């Protein structure tokens, strides 16, 4: 694939590769990296080496999709296309570099570049990815889904997503990450660039459902132009170490950006979510809501930041993170942050860590509900505030079941 890539793409890759050589290794001393050692994600330290491949993961059946793309170990593959409205493109990203150069060239790497080490690593090494293009005024009513799997055959798995929703267009895109439990450490790097032009609407879901042995560094950056609506939903359930960096950029006035997330960590899982809303335009709305449950000796970190640079009056921005700790020994850190340099804005932030309320538990038990079932109801109920924003019913039920399974 790389041979056939246009010169500009080869050049970008060469620059990223060169940056990897020259940029200093991440040590974990950096402020942004103090909660999750970069080496634990395969960013620096010994190069992860692959072992024997386990059986490939069966594609999730789930509901109806307008297109499906399966990337095994991040290798490119052709999508399976259903009936797409005229002008809609769903393609493997490497192929799209060649087939849709005019659409891809100016946007690829525009939101997630390769000036820093994790960015350079992804840009230098990705082979397969997802490209979704929805032309002006077109509604892609049925979602597309990409399934990225790891088999253990390679120590590193990389993938990229580029979504362009043109003026007044609409789409729902799912990026799903799945593997069985793997013996060796596999390091996954993904980057998703979501571009929504004026009046467009995009719902993007990232479902992190890895088995043991997988570490995942995920970046998602969305740009909402004038009056656009973007909703990013992140569900983190599986993987040994997962760090998700989601950035919602209000690029145009009147835009509406929502970052919703839920996570449930058990065993000795470590999840970090760094969620940023950056208001580059005035009169825009953003809302970050992340809720997490954790048990055993799991550790989760939420870092949220509302950034309002000078020149963004009328900003209306909120962030909330709440955690439910189910037992002693599990630990949740929450760091809600604000960087506001414009007057006349409405911003609020809240972070909380709590335990299952004795009175809630008693109320359910006093009606005959056994303790384990009552706890399950309470935890699923706690996460419901996020789940109810998942519009696809079949997906919502699947996620509820996945959460319940962790409580079994």
């Amino acid at each position, binding site marked *: 694939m790389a041979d056939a890539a246009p010169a500009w793409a080869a050049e970008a890759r060469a620059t990223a590769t060169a940056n990897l050589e020259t940029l200093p290794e991440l040590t974990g001393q950096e402020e942004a990296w103090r909660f999750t050692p970069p080496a634990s994600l395969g960013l620096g330290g010994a190069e992860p080496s692959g072992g024997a491949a386990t059986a490939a993961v069966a594609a999730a059946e789930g509901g109806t999709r307008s297109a499906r793309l399966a990337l095994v170990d991040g290798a490119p593959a052709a999508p399976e296309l259903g009936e797409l409205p005229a002008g809609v493109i769903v393609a493997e990203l490497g192929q799209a570099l060649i087939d849709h150069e005019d659409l891809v060239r100016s946007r690829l790497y525009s939101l997630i570049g390769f000036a820093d080490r994790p960015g350079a690593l992804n840009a230098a090494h990705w082979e397969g990815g997802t490209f979704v293009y929805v032309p002006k005024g077109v509604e892609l009513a049925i979602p597309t889904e990409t399934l990225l799997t790891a088999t253990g055959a390679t120590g590193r798995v990389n993938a990229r997503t580029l979504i362009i929703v043109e003026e007044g267009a609409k789409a729902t895109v799912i990026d799903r990450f799945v593997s069985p439990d793997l013996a060796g450490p596999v390091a996954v790097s993904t980057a998703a660039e979501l571009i929504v032009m004026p009046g467009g609407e995009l719902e993007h879901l990232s479902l992190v459902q890895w088995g043991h042995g997988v570490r995942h560094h995920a970046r998602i950056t969305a740009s909402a132009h004038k009056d656009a609506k973007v909703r990013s939903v992140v569900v983190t359930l599986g993987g040994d170490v997962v760090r998700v960096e989601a950035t919602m950029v209000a690029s145009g006035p009147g835009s509406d950006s929502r970052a919703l997330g839920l996570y449930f960590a058990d065993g000795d899982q470590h999840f970090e979510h760094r969620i940023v809303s950056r208001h580059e335009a005035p009169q825009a709305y953003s809302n970050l809501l992340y809720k997490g449950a954790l048990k055993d000796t799991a550790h989760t970190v939420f870092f949220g930041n509302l950034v309002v640079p000078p020149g963004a009056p009328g900003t209306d921005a909120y962030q909330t993170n709440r955690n439910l700790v189910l037992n002693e020994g599990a630990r949740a850190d929450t760091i809600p942050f604000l960087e506001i340099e414009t007057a006349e804005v409405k911003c609020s932030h809240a972070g909380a860590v709590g335990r299952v309320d004795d009175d809630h538990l*008693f109320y*359910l*038990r*006093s*009606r*005959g509900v*056994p303790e384990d079932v009552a706890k399950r*109801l309470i935890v699923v109920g706690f996460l*419901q505030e996020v789940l109810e924003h998942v519009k696809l019913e079949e997906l919502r039920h699947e996620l509820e079941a996945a959460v319940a399974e962790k409580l079994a």
Partner: protein
Amino acid sequence: MADPILTIEGLEVAVDGKPILTGVDLAIPQGEVHALMGPNGSGKSTLAYALAGHPRYDITGGSVTFNGADLLDMEADERAQAGFFLAMQYPVEVPGVSVLNFLRTALNAVRGEEISPRAFMKLFQEKSKLLEFDASFSDRYLNEGFSGGEKKRHEILQMAMLEPKFAVLDETDSGLDVDALKVVSNGVNSLRGPDLGALIITHYTRILKYITPDVVHVMYDGRVVRTGGPELADELEANGYAEYGSAEPAAVSGA
């Protein structure tokens, strides 16, 4: 007289190390409705929560026999499964748990078998009608955004659906206007019968005008100090709790 469904002997209960109940004796034959009256702080609600098995209430002495079994030996959910029910004074809000999901889970747990969705909905609609409970609340989260009256109706609705052998109604009349009190009382009266005993805990005599008790007990300072017939309620209505050293009335002005 029927065998007692509930026998309490010398029950002592402490909360955060502080003794509240100091030896409660009470026996209620199955099918009878008893009222437990007393001024604030006499220990009425403590008795209710202790019987239901709230972990914050420490049993420091005495025994409770329920339907022939040791009630204090059971977890809260086992008590409910055995047929004990508490309609709470302050039902808590549980975020994200829908009324229907909760009721179905509770019903299945108490019955020990899965009810079919169809039979469940039929039962829910039937009992909602009985208690004039707005069935559109079924998708709401437990007690969230419910008015005081809706919460109480919802408590009695649960009782109607779970069909317990014995129910404690803790200050069910508080916060209810007269119309709501009538509806709730009618609901209780329609469930009343040889298979349901009840203890109605109340500060005021108001609810006893709608649900006539067989026996009235007076609680003061952590124990039952007097037991009598329904006329005892009338006496309290007239005199308040002065006899027991409390200036509180037992009649609601204007009720």
